[in-house]
C-alpha cells in the first residue's frame, strides 16, 4: 500500500470540512523513518514542496476578516466597525468585502480557513506573542530558536558547515526573523532583490584570515564572517533562478504595509526559476489598528487578498502551483469589542488561512463563540497555532514524526487540511495485520461498537474530543491476535464529532464518529 493511500484511509472522507484533529501524530511515522527508502522519499518530497509564510504583522483583526455576518453579538460588539456587506462563505460567515481574491480562491477550494487559532494564556504583547509564534513556544516559556530553524536544522544537520546548493530558507526583506534561527546558526538568508543582491556581492574579497579569539568581539566577527560567506555562496544561484522565470500576470499596485505584491513576485520567480528552497517568508505590516480601523484595515486586507490571488495565478501560469502552500500568521486577533477610537485593542484567537490547490478547502473549527469568552471578552482558542505547524510538517512536507518533534518540541494533534505528498512506501503496519474499522452504528446515541484487528500484543484504544483531549481509555492491555469488539457508551457528552484512536506496537490510527443526542 502506498503511504498516500494509507493517509487517505486514515482520514474518514466526507468529514474533512468539519473539525477534525488528525491524531495520527508524528510518532506514527517514526516507524517508517528508519527505512532508508522512506527517508529518501521524504527528502525528495521536501525539496519539491514549498511553504510561503505570510506574516500579517501587528495583530490582524480576524473578526473583521472572516465575519460572523448574521450574528447580532458581532454587531453589538462592533457598532461602528461591524461589516454588513461581507462576501458570503456559508450561512453564517463571510469574507471582508475587500477580499474578493480570497472569495474566488475559496470557491475554487484552494483555501482552508482554520478558525479560532491561538494558544493557552494568550500573551497580548506584540513582541512577545510574535516570538511565541516564531519559536512555537508555550506562552510561559522563552525559546531562542525558531520552529522552522529547528525543522531545517533537523533535516540538514551539517548546516552551516556544508552549504546545500540552494538556500534552505529565504525571507524577503532586509533581516531574518527568529523563525529561521536554528540551534547552531541561522538557517536562511534575507534578500531584498535577487539582482541587486548579486551586484552587491560582486568584486568583494572576503579575507577571513585567522580564527577569531574567544572573546565577545571574536564571537561577533565569527557571526559576520558567516553571513558574508552565505551571501557569497547564494548570490549566484538566487539571481539565476530569478532570471530564469518571468512573472506571468500583473500584480496589483497595492503597497500598503510593505509592498507585498513585489515580495510575492520575487518568490514566484525564484520558485519557478528552479530554486529548491523549501521555505520563504514575506511580510505585510500595519495591522495594529488601535484607531481608525475602518479606513486602515480594508486596504490591508485588499492588499493581502489581491496579492495572494495574483501570486496563485502566476504560480499556475508558471506551472508550479501544486508545489506551493501559503500559511498566514499573526501574533493575535483583536479585541471583540471595538474601542472609542474606531479601533480595536489587542485580542486573542483569530482565523488563519492555508492556501494551495492541494489544501482540502473549507472551514475548520466553529464560528467565533461570543458566549464563551475570556476575561477581556475575547475568544477562547480552539486550535493551538502549533497544530497548524504540525499539520504542515506532516501533510505538506511529509516529514517523519521524530523530525516534527524536533521542530515543535511537543506532540500536537494535526488537522487533515492538506493532501499529502506523493510519497510511495509500503505500509508495514497494514502488512502486519492492524486494522481499525469504522464504528457501528454511526451516528450513534449513546452507544456504539468499535472493531479492530491486531496481530496481538499491547493495545491502547482511546476516545478523544475535538481538541484532541483524551476523554476515555477503552482498552489499555495485552490482547490476543484477531478481531476485537469494544462497546463505547457516551455518558454526559454533548452532540458532536469524537475520535477513537488505536495504538499498538508503533501502529496508530484514528477515526471519527458522530454523537447525536
Amino acid at each position, binding site marked *: 500500500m502506498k503511504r498516500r493511500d494509507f493517509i487517505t484511509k486514515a482520514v474518514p472522507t466526507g468529514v474533512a470540512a468539519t473539525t477534525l484533529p488528525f491524531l495520527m501524530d508524528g510518532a506514527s511515522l517514526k516507524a517508517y523513518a528508519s527505512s532508508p527508502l522512506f527517508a529518501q522519499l521524504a527528502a525528495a518530497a521536501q525539496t519539491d514542496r514549498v511553504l510561503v509564510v505570510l*506574516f500579517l504583522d501587528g495583530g490582524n483583526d480576524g473578526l473583521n476578516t472572516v465575519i460572523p455576518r448574521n450574528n447580532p453579538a458581532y454587531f453589538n460588539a462592533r457598532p461602528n466597525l461591524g461589516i454588513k456587506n461581507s462576501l458570503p462563505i456559508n450561512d453564517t460567515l463571510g469574507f471582508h468585502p475587500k477580499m474578493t481574491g480570497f472569495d474566488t480562491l475559496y470557491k475554487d477550494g484552494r483555501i482552508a480557513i482554520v478558525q479560532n487559532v491561538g494558544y493557552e*494564556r494568550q*500573551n497580548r*504583547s506584540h*513582541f*512577545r506573542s*510574535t*516570538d511565541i509564534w516564531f*519559536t512555537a513556544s508555550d*506562552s*510561559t*516559556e*522563552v525559546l*531562542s530558536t*525558531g520552529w522552522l530553524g529547528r525543522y531545517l536544522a533537523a533535516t540538514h544537520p551539517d548546516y552551516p558547515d556544508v552549504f546545500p546548493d540552494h538556500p534552505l530558507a529565504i*525571507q524577503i526583506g*532586509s*533581516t*531574518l*526573523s527568529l523563525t529561521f*534561527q536554528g*540551534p*547552531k546558526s541561522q538557517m536562511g*538568508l*534575507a*534578500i*531584498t*532583490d535577487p539582482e*541587486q*543582491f548579486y551586484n*552587491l*556581492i560582486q*568584486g*568583494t*574579497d572576503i579575507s577571513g*584570515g*585567522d580564527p577569531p579569539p574567544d*572573546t*565577545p*568581539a571574536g564571537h*561577533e*566577527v565569527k557571526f*559576520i564572517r558567516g*553571513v*558574508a560567506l552565505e*551571501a557569497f555562496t*547564494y548570490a549566484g544561484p538566487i539571481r539565476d533562478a530569478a532570471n530564469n522565470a518571468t512573472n506571468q500576470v500583473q500584480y496589483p499596485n497595492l*503597497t500598503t504595509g*510593505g*509592498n507585498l505584491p*513585489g*515580495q510575492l513576485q520575487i518568490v514566484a520567480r525564484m520558485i519557478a526559476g528552479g530554486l529548491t528552497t523549501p521555505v520563504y517568508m514575506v*511580510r505585510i*505590516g500595519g495591522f495594529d489598528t*488601535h*484607531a481608525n480601523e475602518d479606513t486602515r484595515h480594508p486596504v490591508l486586507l485588499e492588499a493581502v487578498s489581491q496579492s495572494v490571488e495574483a501570486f496563485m495565478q502566476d504560480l499556475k501560469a508558471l506551472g508550479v502551483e501544486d508545489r506551493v502552500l501559503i500559511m498566514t500568521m499573526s501574533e493575535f486577533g483583536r479585541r471583540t469589542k471595538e*474601542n*472609542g*477610537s474606531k*479601533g480595536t485593542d489587542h485580542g486573542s484567537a483569530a482565523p488563519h488561512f492555508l492556501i494551495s490547490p492541494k489544501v482540502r478547502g473549507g472551514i475548520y473549527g466553529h464560528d467565533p463563540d461570543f458566549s464563551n469568552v475570556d476575561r477581556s471578552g475575547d475568544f477562547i482558542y480552539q486550535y493551538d497555532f502549533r497544530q497548524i505547524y504540525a499539520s504542515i510538517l506532516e501533510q505538506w512536507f511529509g516529514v517523519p514524526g521524530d523530525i516534527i518533534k524536533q521542530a515543535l518540541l511537543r506532540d500536537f494533534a494535526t488537522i487533515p487540511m492538506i493532501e499529502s505528498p506523493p510519497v510511495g512506501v509500503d505500509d508495514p503496519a497494514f502488512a502486519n495485520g492492524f486494522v481499525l474499522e469504522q464504528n457501528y452504528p454511526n451516528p450513534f446515541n449513546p452507544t456504539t461498537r468499535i472493531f479492530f484487528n491486531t496481530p496481538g500484543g499491547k493495545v491502547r484504544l482511546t476516545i478523544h474530543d475535538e481538541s484532541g483531549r483524551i476523554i476515555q481509555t477503552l482498552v489499555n492491555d495485552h490482547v490476543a491476535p484477531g478481531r476485537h469488539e469494544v462497546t463505547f457508551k457516551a455518558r454526559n457528552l454533548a452532540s458532536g464529532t469524537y475520535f477513537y484512536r488505536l495504538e499498538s506496537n508503533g501502529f496508530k490510527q484514528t477515526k471519527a464518529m458522530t454523537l447525536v443526542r
Partner: protein
Amino acid sequence: MNRRSFFSQAGLTAGALVVARKGGSAKGRGGDKNKKPPREQYQASLKGLPETNRIRPKVAAGLEPYVPSEQQPWDEQRVGHLLRRTMFGAKLDHIKMALKKAPGEVVDMLLADKPLPNPPGNWVSENWDYDGSSSADRKRDAGRMKQLRNWWIELMLSDEFSIREKLTLFWHDHFATEYLTVRCPQWEYGYLNTLRKNALGNFKQFVTDMTTDPAMLDYLDGRLSTKGRPNENYGRELQELFTMGVGNYTEDDIKEAARALTGWTIPLLVNQRPRYVWAIQSAFVPSRHDDGEKTFLGQTGNWDYKDIIDIIFQQDVTAKFICRKLYREFVYEVADETIVDQLAQIFRRNNYDLKPVLSTLFKSAHFFDNAMIGAHISNPLEFGIGNCRSLNISNSNIDYLFLEGKVLGMEIFQPPNVAGWPAYRTWISSSLLPTRWAFSDSIVNGTMPSKYRFKVDVLAYARLFDDPNDARQLVTDIATHLINYPMSQNQLNFLLDALLQGAPEYEWNIDAPNAEFRLRSFLVALLRMPESQLS
C-alpha cells in the same frame, strides 16, 4: 561593485522592504501573571540568539573606577573604545586630546550639560495648519520633516565631544514614534526636543514629559482615549516597553492605567474639514478624564497619569529594566546582571537621575575591560556617520547619510514599530552586509550618485599619522584607528597588500603619484572587513 546597487537598494527599501519586526528582541517573559520566571529567561530571549551561541564575557572587573595599568593601558585603543561607544566614530584629534587627560575627566566632559541647539526653523512654534486636500501642505510638511531630520543628522555629525546626540538616538529607539503615523513635523520636533532635553536628566521626569508629549499622544492614541472609551495602546507600551518590561503587570493593570491616562489630548483649534489646525502643545481636558477609582499594580485610588507614573517608579523592576537596556546598548548585548543590579541601585538612590548611572558605568573597570572592546555591532548611523567623522570628511552629504541609515534599516523618525530597532545582529544580514560594503566603498571612492557626491581626502587623512611614508606603520596605525579589534599579522599583511598592490614596501611614498589610488583601495578593503562592523 556596481555603484548603483547601494542606491537602487535605497529605492527598494523605501517602499518595499521594511526591516522585519523582529529578530526576536523579546524583552522577556511569558504570560503567566503570577509566576515570575527566572531572570535567565530575559537573557535567553534577547534578540533571538540561541544560548549556546551567546558568549557571556567573563569579566571580573566591576563598577569600581578603571585605573590604567600595564595590561589595560589608557592608549589609542581604549580611548577609541570610550569615544566610539559614546559618540559617532572616533576623531583623531579627539583621541589625542583625551589621551592627555585622565579617563574620569574625559567621561565628565562627555556627560557635561549644554544648551539646546537652535531649532531648524521658525515653523517649529507654529500651530499645525493642515489641509488634507492640499498638496502644498503635504509638500510643506515633507520639506519641514526633511529639514528636521537633516538638522539632527548634522548635529550627530558635527557635535563636539558630547554623548548627547548618541543618547538622544538611544532614547528615540526607546520611546519610539514614527513620522508616517504622527505626520506633524512640529510634534516630531517637540518630541525630539523632549528626548534631547531629558537625555541626561531625570528618567521619571522624562517618562512624565513623554506621557503628555503630543507626538506620543498621537502615535499611541492617547489623544483619542477618553472616559468610558479608553484606548489601551499607550497604557500598555508605557509598562511593557518604556518602564517595567513584559511580565511585570497584568492585563487589568493595562486597562486601569489606560483609564487613569485619559484626559490628555491635542487641542484641535480649527475643524473645517478638510482643513484642520492643531495646537503644538498637548492639554489636559478634565471632562475627558476618567476620575473614578482604579486599581493599578495593587494600589487603589483615583489615579491620574502622575499617580500611575509614581506607582511604576515604586517598582524595583523599573530601574533594572532601564539599566539593563543601557548596559546592552553601551557595553555588550549580553547583560551582566550583577552590574545591572548595582546600576539599578545607583539609579534608585539618585531618584532616577541618569547621569550618576552613566558616569559610574563609563568610568568603570568593567566598561574598560579588554573583553568589552570591539564587542558592539555598530548600528547603521554609527557605521555611516561614525566613519565619516573618523575619516575627517568635512563635506559629507547630509541627505546621503540619512539615506544610508534608511537603507541599512535605521531611518530616523521611522523605527519599524513602537519597540524601536531590534538592533544587534539584526543589523547584519546577507542583504544588509553587502549594502554596508557598498556604502563604505562609496565614501572612499565617491561612487554615489552625483547629487550626493563626496569622498574622503585620503592623503590628508593619512598625513594625520606619525609616519605616513612607512607603509607597514601606516597600515597598522590606520587599522588601529578605524578598527577596535586586535588585528592579526595575517590581516595586517592582507591590508598591506591592498595598499602596495604588488609594489615593494620600500617604494611606498605618500607623495608618489599613485599613492591616493592605493590608499583608496586599501581603505575599501579595510572597511569591508567584518571587524569594521564592530565598535
